[in-house]
């Protein structure tokens, strides 16, 4: 069990992190104080054209040198610094959180690296697999992930989360069942502009992992959630599927339902199941994914984990608990629980 939150202001009006912090802290009993994290979109407008690479360093020696070398090889670092933080008594600082603002060099984009995104993905996989003591945990543009092992308030205060203003927020409080010490195991998980918070377990992880590995992704986070970010990157970015279609592929309708659909619709759904069978996600989960143009929210096909949706004008909230939504917005207008597998998609207008 974990507590998750997603927020989007579809009019792109930005909200600071204090509300999210309060809401996540409200769900303290859904976690164990061993991992919490936040993702915010729209926080780096001054560096909007640069990839914001957030890195955990175990030390500033060898690991940092190697990451600097890789980045300088592939492009230009326009700015770097430690991510501002304030020590918290309840939070053991086991890594140094660092951020780079980075732009891949145009003349290195060739062959398999067909775009800037491909280069950045390559760097992320390379660093996370091969460099001991360095983990890139956030690699999107104009967005960032802030996470650590600790209680939601402590993590928020450590990163001074209320200083950031974003039009999308994701938050997560973890009840880890593996690798509790390592900050990289906390959510959100991120690759490029995909960020994922996830309450649940993926029983199809072995199948999904082997599928994404076939596309060159490396599962290094020791937890099942990262595979969701990679599935979105394959289906969304590489195959060009719409958000609705991605969800359809990951949590497709049951065959009995497909058999009852009109012929064309049935054929489309059959094609999705045949083509994306290895991407189908099984197990109990509710998931929020942050993207370039909004948030995508869905649960498993038989809804074994909770998910509540609230709306107020241009603001869309989702969470494991209604109380968390009401904490963020006491004026919230409509509150409802979506059906199993039904996607809730919040897009900018």
């Amino acid at each position: 069990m974990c507590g998750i939150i997603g927020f989007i202001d579809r009019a792109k009006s930005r909200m600071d992190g204090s509300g999210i912090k309060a809401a996540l802290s409200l769900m303290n009993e859904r976690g164990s104080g061993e991992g919490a994290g936040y993702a915010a979109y729209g926080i780096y407008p001054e560096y909007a054209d640069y990839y914001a690479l957030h890195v955990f360093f175990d030390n500033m020696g060898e690991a940092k040198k190697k990451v600097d070398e890789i980045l300088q090889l592939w492009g230009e670092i326009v700015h770097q610094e430690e991510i501002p933080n304030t020590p918290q008594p309840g939070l053991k600082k086991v890594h140094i959180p660092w951020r780079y603002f980075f732009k891949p060099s145009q003349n290195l984009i060739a062959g398999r690296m067909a775009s800037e995104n491909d280069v950045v993905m390559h760097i992320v996989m390379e660093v996370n697999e091969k460099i001991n003591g360095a983990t890139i945990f956030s690699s999107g543009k104009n967005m960032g992930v802030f996470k650590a092992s600790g209680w939601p308030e402590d993590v928020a205060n450590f990163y001074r989360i209320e200083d950031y203003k974003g039009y999308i927020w994701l938050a997560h409080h973890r009840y880890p069942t593996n690798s509790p010490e390592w900050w990289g195991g906390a959510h959100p998980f991120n690759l490029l502009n995909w960020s994922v918070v996830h309450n649940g377990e993926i029983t199809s992880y072995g199948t999904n992992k082997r599928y994404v590995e076939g596309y060159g992704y490396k599962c290094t986070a020791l937890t099942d959630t990262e595979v969701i970010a990679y599935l979105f990157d394959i289906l969304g970015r590489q195959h060009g599927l719409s958000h609705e279609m991605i969800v359809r592929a990951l949590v497709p309708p049951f065959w009995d339902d497909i058999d009852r659909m009109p012929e064309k619709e049935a054929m489309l759904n059959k094609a999705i199941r045949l083509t994306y069978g290895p991407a189908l996600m099984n197990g109990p989960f509710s998931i929020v994914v942050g993207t370039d143009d909004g948030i995508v929210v869905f649960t498993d096909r038989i809804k074994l984990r909770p998910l509540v949706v609230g709306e107020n004008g241009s603001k869309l909230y989702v969470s494991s608990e209604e109380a968390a939504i009401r904490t963020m917005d006491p004026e919230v207008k409509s509150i409802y629980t979506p059906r199993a597998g039904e996607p809730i998609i919040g897009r900018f207008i």
Partner: protein
Amino acid sequence: MTLGSVPPKFKVSIDHDQCMDCGRCIENCSYGVYRREGDKILIESRKCTACLRCVSMCPRDAINITEKPIDYRSHPVWTREAREDIINQARSGKIILSGMGNARDLPIIYDNLLLDACQVTTPSIDPLREPMELRTYLGKKPSKLKFKKTESGDVELDTQLAPNLKLNTPIMIGHMSFGAISLNSQLSMAKAVKEIGTYMGAGEGGLHKNLYPYQDNMIVQVASGRFGVNIDYLERGAAIEVKIGQGAKPGIGGHLPGEKVNEEVSKTRMIPLGSDAISPAPHHDIYSIEDLVQLIRSLKEATEWKKPVFVKIAAVHSVARSAAGIARSSADAVVIDGFRGGTGAAPKVFRDHVGIPIETAIASVDQELRKQGVRNEISIIASGGIRSSADLAKSIALGADAVYIGTAALISLGCRVCGNCYRNLCPWGIATQRPDLVSRLDPEAGAVQVSNLIHGWTLELGELMGGAGINSIESLRGNRDRLRGYMLDEGMLNILDVLPAGA
């Protein structure tokens, strides 16, 4: 002859206090163990194969059969089998023929693989109360889909799907030809697969006209002998399978002893009456992969690209490379037949010594196809020694899409695995063409037994998946995280890409 006789394999005895002298044992034994002399039933134990037909039919449980009543001096190297094979060959100067699958006492990897189940962090799924999806499609699949928007704004599919076979459960029955087995056996299985919504192989023996009503659930085979192959035959099948090799005898062709070639077999198979039908070792129009590619295309052209084409290969050391070559052709599925695969007749030395276990073959083929990025575009069908729903679940978790069963289906029809299939004397009416023996197998009753077996395994597979928190077969396929190896060495764990138990 200076060799004399070898000790009988079995000792048959009748408890005369129990025996009611009904004579059913005499009627039922096609091997001629029993005969009546006066008011006595005499026994010739030497002829017994332990097919257990007499035991099953004796109304009084009066018959007892013991194995190896007289054994040789025990010796770790010169086993009974080693000595008797030498004696046989000293007598005959020939290749030793055998039936069924590999009979050596080698470790079975399936038995050392353990399945997973959910506990606290994940709920298990109850197939009695929640949907459980075992439906499987076999055939080429696109690597990605394209969509287009219609004028009305609807999203439409812009990718053409290749024809796929739809299976209600990932269990099919493998190719056993008319000739190797009786028409009543084929009919029993055909009725069962039709009822269940799955498929069976016709074998390389053509398709008897009595099977035409079931042709939509039959996969026709093109083997190196091309027996029974013509356009009518190809068009009748739901799919076509090119048989390159067979797990029981990799590297050689099919072998049907002349004793089994009666008039019906001769007509269906288009071969002379009473003659041995020995298929060539290779297809003489396939000397390399590009020739196979051409044959597949020709078969597809001939049937207007309406039918999936499978390619069956024996699991040998280079199986992964062969499968990768096949995956690059227009073939829809690769069938891998492990070294425990059964047969009606095979040289014993091949049956027992050539090829590799199906578990390792599934693992390496699945891995190689993934490495080359084509795994989901072609289906993998595994066969050869699959004995239970557990073997089935483990095969799928290792990476197979579906399995073929052969021996298991025959056992459901009465077979007791006596291994004398090549003699045309099968007292269960299965591996024989003798009309009096064939008539012992009622296709209606046989169909119920076969479909009961497949139903039973299907239910168990659903329960195993539910226990593991999985409600769709796609999520079990290649999900090796849900397997653990028990007492397997590190090399084997690496090949299987499975963690040891406890990890």
